């Protein structure tokens, strides 16, 4: 009995002295999977995503990577892939090809990963964008998302844009933009082009730079306001005059491509009416609408004196076509487009829309081929073959976020939103 008691006591002691190991963490399996193709790349619908796509596993452990089984499928879009399933090779890689479909702008290729026992581990996705014809597709990443100005030279087939203080030239694909580096192009702010395809860039330091060889070289013009080191506003009128404006200086123009500058407006105080648009009419007079409301003026002495014209409603934008027909946008009853065929003496209401919000108007009237594309901020884009004919108007793209509209040298419409860094592309197939 003594032995039994001692044995039991000893057993209890042994159990009570049970040792437990110190806390620790060990990684038994550790994989990371990735497509070796940049996420968010942009392609055309129906295009192959590169020459091939490499799907790769990384691990710092001793697992054999070829024990990984991968199932590929198209998660979004209706493209095709050349490999549906495969085991990874000893380098932990699988290659395949992916041809984008036409089903959607967002296209996704998914890889579902399993171990040898068939246990699902995780999945990885490659997401790209596929631009289509005859549809509006966004770009919220890349330099184009911050686009603030664009010019297109349809003769030399080039398009330039300014975005985030950088000059870009459009690449082979209209949504691809390549930065332009030039010693004279420093902190560009605005970009304009005249009818002789001379491109003007103004900078944040008030310099004016131009290129007469469709962007191959850039030269400084005479500084419009030598004593001003801040930015200026620039407008190129249809007679190739370059107009500059600064709130603390008088409006000036250059008739010789920025070599010399002439002050205007010694008496009428047109500078106080803000930066606006100026058109040379066929009779030699100038028509000007300031950036402030209801300031339509005409000058018969090349800008020395101005006569104010009466506008309907609260006008803020004019456009003059090749027939000297004046179109005026006014914020009365929504936004109404008026037409005048008597040099602004009388206006006739043509078409009205009701935008969700009002603001200043930038590139409003854009012509490509036989059609005008008119962007009304807060409403969207109207399309018309004759802006003076109300029956010719159609609602082309209703998007109340839009603020500005450009057309590249191929006729691709590029619309910029006001509040978000997004542009929308529209390529017309016809």
């Amino acid at each position, binding site marked *: 009995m003594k032995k039994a008691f001692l044995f039991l006591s000893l*057993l209890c002691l042994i159990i*009570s002295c049970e040792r*437990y190991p110190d*806390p620790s963490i*060990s*990684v038994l399996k550790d*994989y990371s999977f*990735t497509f070796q193709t940049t996420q968010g790349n942009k392609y055309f619908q129906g295009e192959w995503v590169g020459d091939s796509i490499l799907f790769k596993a990384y691990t710092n452990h001793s697992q054999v990577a070829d024990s990984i089984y991968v199932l590929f499928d198209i998660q979004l879009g209706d493209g095709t892939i050349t490999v549906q399933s495969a085991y990874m090779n000893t380098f932990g890689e699988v290659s395949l090809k992916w041809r984008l479909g036409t089903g959607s702008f967002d296209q996704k290729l998914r890889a579902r990963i399993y171990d040898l026992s068939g246990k699902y581990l995780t999945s990885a996705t490659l997401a790209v964008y596929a631009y289509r014809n005859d549809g509006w597709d966004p770009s919220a990443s890349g330099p184009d998302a911050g686009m603030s100005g664009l010019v297109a030279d349809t003769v030399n087939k080039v398009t330039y844009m300014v975005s985030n203080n950088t000059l870009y030239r459009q690449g082979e694909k209209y949504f691809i933009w390549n930065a332009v580096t030039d010693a004279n192009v420093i902190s560009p702010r605005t970009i304009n082009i005249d009818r002789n395809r001379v491109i003007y860039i103004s900078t944040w330091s008030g310099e004016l730079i131009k290129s007469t060889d469709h962007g191959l070289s850039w030269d400084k013009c005479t500084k419009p306001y030598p004593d001003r080191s801040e930015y200026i506003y620039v407008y190129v009128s249809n007679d190739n005059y370059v107009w500059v404006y600064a709130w603390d200086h008088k409006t000036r123009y250059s008739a010789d491509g920025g070599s010399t500058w002439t002050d205007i407006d010694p008496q009428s105080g047109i500078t106080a009416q803000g930066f606006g648009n100026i058109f040379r009419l066929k009779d030699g007079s100038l028509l000007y609408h300031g950036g402030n409301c209801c300031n339509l003026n005409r000058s018969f002495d090349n800008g020395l004196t101005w006569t104010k014209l009466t506008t309907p409603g609260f006008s803020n934008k004019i456009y003059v076509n090749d027939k000297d027909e004046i179109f005026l946008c006014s914020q009365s009853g929504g936004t109404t487009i008026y037409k005048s065929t008597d040099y602004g003496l009388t206006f006739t209401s043509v078409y009205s829309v009701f935008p969700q919000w009002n603001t200043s108007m930038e590139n409003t009237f854009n012509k490509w081929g036989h059609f005008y594309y008119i962007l009304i901020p807060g409403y969207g884009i109207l399309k018309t073959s004759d802006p003076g004919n109300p029956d010719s108007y159609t609602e082309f793209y209703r998007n109340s976020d839009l603020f500005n509209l450009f057309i590249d040298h191929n006729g691709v419409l590029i619309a910029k939103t006001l509040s978000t860094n997004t542009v929308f592309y529209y390529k017309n197939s016809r």
Partner: protein
Amino acid sequence: MKNFKLSIILLLLLLCYSVSYSQSFTTGITSGINFSDIHGQDVGGKWCSKPGPSEGLSLGYSFNKSIGIQTGIGFSTVSYEHKNQYYQYVPINYYLSSMYPYPIIDPIYYQGGSYMDFSFVRIPLLVAVTVPSAVQFNMRAGLLFSFAKGHGSNPNYYYYNSYYSDYKDFTKNDFGFLFSSGVSYPLSDRIDLSLNLNYITGRKKFMEYSAMRHGSSEITIGVNYNFIKKNKLNSNPEPQSDSSAHRVTVTYSAGLNYSWSTFESGSDKYSPLSGPSLGFSVNIPLGHEVYFLTGVTFERKGYALKDSSESFYRYQERGGQEYLVDTKIITDYAVIPFLISLPLGKSPGVFFNTGPWLGLKLNSRTVGLAYNEINSGSVYRYTKNVVYDDIEKVINNYDIGWLFSGGVSFLVFNNYKVDLSAQFSAGFRDLFEKKVLSDIDPASIEQKMRLRTMSLHLGITLPSGKR
């Protein structure tokens, strides 16, 4: 230093006093080893029970054969070591966009470790109870005043232990309780050899920004010198009945516990846990073979958890990172029973015990394994966590309950009584400290857990009155 000198002077005075009036005095010297057992620690990590020396001089005064007081002076060094592991609570981002096609780097799990050691001068003030038998049984309990004479620490880089860095924050004086039990064996008329188990628990926080308190268990061997011969002490023995039924006896018992939890929900996720039980009981005769039993039993109780859970010590799913948990939640108690033992027939023979008990928590921890699977984005990671977390903070300091036991006793070798019994014990209090738990997981306090225990015990009662 001032306290140390005072302690020495006090000891010398006491020794002089004992020499002058030696009739009832005992003095002794003990030496042993302590195992640190820190209290009040936060939840998480492993506090290792580190060994350290314990030495002491004791001076006792006996009022009679059974009751006395004891004081003395002790020297000990207590070392604490904390080991922890960074648990990765959030999915890990590898920055594995194709923009960064670089090989990934393993996640780093830091092994945290910190050390503290304290050297104490200790002065106990104890009440001693002696039960004469073939091997004399001693129990002592009382106050312990400790004066830290030195300390050192090695804080690691882990923020959890950052409050160790300011050494001057350590409290130098401590006050606590000491519980001791042991046996002594006479080597001669004046000299005894003793073996004692001591449990020391400090009551003062020893760091300003932490609830931690000192604690340790000791095992010591001592030699005691009696200033009066045993035969003199026994020269005028009190009249005693020859019947063992009229003597106080001590039963030493050992057994196995089988404990389980009673969660009100999710109980299928829990399973029982087995553990040891070791202790003694003092059997005080009440007459007619009826005894009042009390003493101390060290019992290991708890339960096992096996399921997917966010917590390692109780089932929890709140939508966070989950682990496949396979852990044991272990709590050690010092159980003090207050039982009535009734014979069912002639004694020794079949008996039945019942009564309340008080369980004082000694320590509590979670041990085991927890596996975690992360598939976040294109990352898959499978980790194994070896869990050792002290969870004393979330466990209630004590439990009370009721037990029933029944068994059979019989005599062997004529003088030794052996008990073989089965016992069922039910705790009444929630295992978890509600306030602490609600800070960690407010939703979890709705679930109450109580422990139930089945035990098998083998006890042996030594012949009494042999000294």
